[in-house]
């Protein structure tokens, strides 16, 4: 897995935010569209594509998209 693919999938969870406004260094919780609902779609995407569970704390403790990618990467590694 790589962070470019994760970024692409992460961007797809937003309806109103342009993909250009989201990169790996974006503090995603500061995006106007970010909401508990978008958080659930991110959890669902990670469950679907990477087969690992994100928790509320994982989302709360991450600031940037890259932070979240690293959490997912760590969980995927641990599950192998």
């Amino acid at each position, binding site marked *: 897995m790589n962070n470019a693919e994760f970024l692409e999938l992460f961007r797809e969870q937003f309806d109103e935010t342009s993909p250009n406004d989201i990169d790996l260094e974006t503090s995603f919780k500061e995006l106007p569209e970010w909401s*508990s*609902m978008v*958080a*659930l779609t991110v*959890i*669902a995407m990670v*469950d679907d594509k990477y087969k690992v*569970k*994100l*928790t*509320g704390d994982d*989302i709360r403790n991450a600031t940037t998209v890259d932070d979240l990618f690293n959490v997912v990467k760590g969980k995927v590694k641990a599950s192998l």
Partner: protein
Amino acid sequence: MGFLKANNVSLVGLAASVPKGRVDNLLDPNIQDPEKLVKSTGIRYRHIANDNVCTSDLCIDAARNLIDRLCWNPLEIDCVLFVTQTPDYILPATSNKIQNALGISKDAFCMDISLGCSGYVYALSVCASLMQNGSLKRGLILAGVTISKLCPVTDKSTYPLFGDAGTATALAFDEKASPILFHFGSDGAGYNAIIVEDGGFRNPTNHESFQKVNYGDGIEHSRLQLHLEGMDVFSFAINSAPNSVNQLLQYGGLVKDEISYFIFHQANLFMNERIRKKLSLSVEQVPYSLYDYANTSSATIPLTLLKTLISRAAIDKVPIIGCGFGVGLSWGSFYTELNNIILSEINNFE
């Protein structure tokens, strides 16, 4: 192993009562962006009990209607299980009070079961297990909740999602019945994902219990009200529910396409649709009652089953799977085949 098989017991009747008063999420001024909320949660109406109405009142009303429809003599009911997390009192158990209110025999086996979203599956397993050797011939499962009393308007994570309901399910000893199969699961590591923190004996009620705590993002409630970690519950549910159903299918040698209905606990549409898609089930196989009744905890499975069956002309060899998941964390699934079940219309309780 988490599996159980109960023989010789049939599900013979279903009834439900909901408070007459209901709130329309689309018209509720306390909800921001109501159309978006209804679309994502699937929840439009919530039936809300008055201050003086308890879960037991709703369940007793449902039970009375069902006993009438079945033409049962209450003195011949051998077992009453009340499954709720909003009982009348911390003690005594409410099932004893219900036994008396319904005129059920003093020889009856009565017990409260403190479970929420998964509770119906567990109560069904307890009742069927007790009855399968024929000593107890008629049983009632009363599942319900008045959880709206724990969901303040200041908490957007619970207030628009939960409603109140009481249900009654009748079981009868029947040597010709096909077996009821179960799968169970529990993960107490997530005990605080859905919790009322104070008022029990771990954290007795104190002055601070009444103070509102602001958790941010539109979530403010006291420690005597419901706290829900939405993201954790979602992550748990979209894994545990499909896994439980798959394990049950495997245990029973069952084929998904041959199951008429999968009746899931009604959490919210976004979560439930995720579960449906993970299991590759058709829209027709997965009925909902969320739009009209919201999330009613242990009542959702019988309420959804009743709403679904009432619209059918005949009920003859209808294989179903039920699956509950949530507070505990606790989950479970059951399989049974329904035949000639007596249905009582969903009653509006005043």
